[in-house]
């Protein structure tokens, strides 16, 4: 299951970020590392980006980037 599928308002724990390009490195650098808790705050209209809360701040990423973030069940 990926972060893209997490329901709005719920919190999930990151298991892994797939890929080894600059995007996945950026996601890690922004704090989406294995073990961190992420709350999905909301989403932009028309299937736009997700608004996340982690490590005490808010981050927005697009859905296909969220799909790279695997969630611990």
């Amino acid at each position, binding site marked *: 299951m990926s972060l893209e599928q997490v329901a709005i308002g719920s919190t999930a724990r990151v298991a892994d970020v797939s890929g080894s390009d600059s995007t996945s490195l950026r*996601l890690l*650098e922004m704090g989406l*590392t294995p073990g961190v808790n992420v709350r999905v705050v909301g989403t*932009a209209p*028309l299937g736009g*980006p997700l*608004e996340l809360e982690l490590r005490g*701040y*808010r981050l927005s990423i697009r859905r296909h980037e969220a799909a790279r973030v695997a969630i611990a069940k």
Partner: protein
Amino acid sequence: MSPTPDGTASPDGSPLPAGWAGRCIVVALLGNPNTGKSTLFSALAGIPTRIGNYPGVTVEEKLGRFTHRGQSIELIDLPGTYSLVPKSPDEQVAVDVLHGRLPDVPTPDCVVVVADATNLERNLYLATQAIELGLPTVVALTLCDVADEKGITIDSAELGRRLVCPVVRVVAPTRTGIDALGDAILSVIHSPRQQPQGLDAHLAAVHPRHEQAAREAIARYAWIEQLLSGVVHRQPPSTRPLGERIDDVLTHRLWGTLVFATTMLAMFSSIFWLATPLMDGISGAMDWLSGLTESLLPEGAIRSLVVNGVLAGVGGVVVFVPQIAMLFLFIAILEGCGYLSRAAFLMDRLLCGVGLGGKSFIPLLSSFACAIPGIMAARTIENPRDRLLTILVAPLMSCSARLPVYLLLCGAFVPNVAVGFSWLRLPAIVLAGMYAVGVATAALVALVLSRTIFRGPPQPFVMELPGWRWPRWPVVLERVREAVWSFLQNAGTLIVAVSIVVWALSSYPRNDTVIDADVAAHREVLTTRLAGLPAGDSDRTDVAEELAALDTDDGLAAARRGAAQRHSALGWMGRLVEPLVRPLGWDWRLGCAAIASFPAREVVLGTLAVIYNLGDIDPGEEEGGTALVRRLRAATWDGTNRRVFTLPVALSIMVFFALCAQCASTLVVIGRETKSWLWPVVTFTYMTVLAWLGAFATYQIGTWLGG
């Protein structure tokens, strides 16, 4: 190489080690975006001593200077960055400066890492990377006041021990902790450097299947969590923080979008409302100056050069200043309080569809007022590919200079009939259609370019939504000042030069014999035409009026002015391009007007007025506009009674103006912002080709439907 302080006290016991005396210490200011870095820069150094671009890139370079306890310190503001593993030009510059790899930029002796106290985990990511570089480092904890409000307490002394570098709490707007920061800089410069330990231990714990950079990122966060345990205490506030409650509304799918639309509408219309009187004031002042010059200088070439060349050019530059200042004021406020990222978040999906991103929205919206501030606003887009694409399509948004052309032609040549509803009139639909033509073409161009020459790996959209806070006025005003100044300084001179060239083309060569012959021939044509028109024909009054005007001093002067322009280099060029514009339904006079408006499209109505012997009237005013419309309606193809201006021709002119790059200022600004002359050439070429094709299709289809 910068001298490496060895920590030994200087022989004479002065507070600074040998080698520093009389030398300026170079301090680099590093930090994540949105950490109050600019505010700290102002608090430390005041107004920057130098603002420009780093060599070869469009990344802004900002230097300042201040003195602390007699030691002069040069401050380099590095672009905001999240990591020292560079992924963008901004981040590359930060890394290059820290390593002393950029020519003309002094190598830093010390790094001040700005860290947002409300968000230490992520901020320490960059801070620990900076500490590992080995330069003397100080961590400045900013936004401590906001952290206090949020119930976050930080044991900065303990954090300093763990990081093995001074950690100073600052509240930049009130200058709290600024002196302590200065002291910390002086102390680290000559104390022995020790590296904090810990990253290596965590690296060993990360699964080896990850790439090296990814392993380091994972290990670094694990280390930071350990560093902060017992250092940061969060006391959950009794009520939900205001910022979160604001965000619930402002990033909501429905409410957020509604608030966004209202904000943009308010911002956009106030730019119009507030900038218009200022722009009118500037035009008025320029008219007054022209009038003064006319009364002081004798009639002749010099006066014409000063009034129609130099002053017109200067006026054409200065008139953009209110809009640039207004837009950057709004952008700086929205950026300062954190709304700009929310706007990009809300609009991302819409623009993603055409290969752009959420951050392109405000630059494109601004371009409806004027492409120049819009293109400059594209600086807020970090991603170089998205930024360039936005700049290339921004001039297709119908700017306010196109509006008078649309209004005049829609009013004069589009039948004022109702469409479906009595309130829905055809001219209004055509007017809206012209805006739609620009937007649709921009979407198409962006889509095609992003799939062809700008094709590449998908650009990530990983954007922080910074906490809500009040904008800092010194930072806001600095932003406005910088935008206006860079426009005047760099674009201004070139625009004035272009304006002088156009003046010369439309004034020379000048031959009085030819002009007299032209006026006489024109009188002949009008007389013959009047005689041929049956009584009661609608054209009779117009032709008779024009003929009568030739007998007045003003009318004759206007006719001579028109003749001079028709026989100038510009007139010659108009005849030269006639085969090109004929398929658009235009005669050579329209070709002239189009050529003359390449430097600035707003001159087209004035040029038409001169060509059609009305002299220097103001077609923007009702009286001038009506006179021009009557003259245009009566205009015929040379030697025939066939009208030039029909509905398909009017539509073809409007489409041409909607799509054509008729603004030298925009092209100059594109060159400046992209640091390359290739992109203005590309923009000019593609827009002119599209404009011709669009006008051609409009005229041909219009004629076919009408015929």
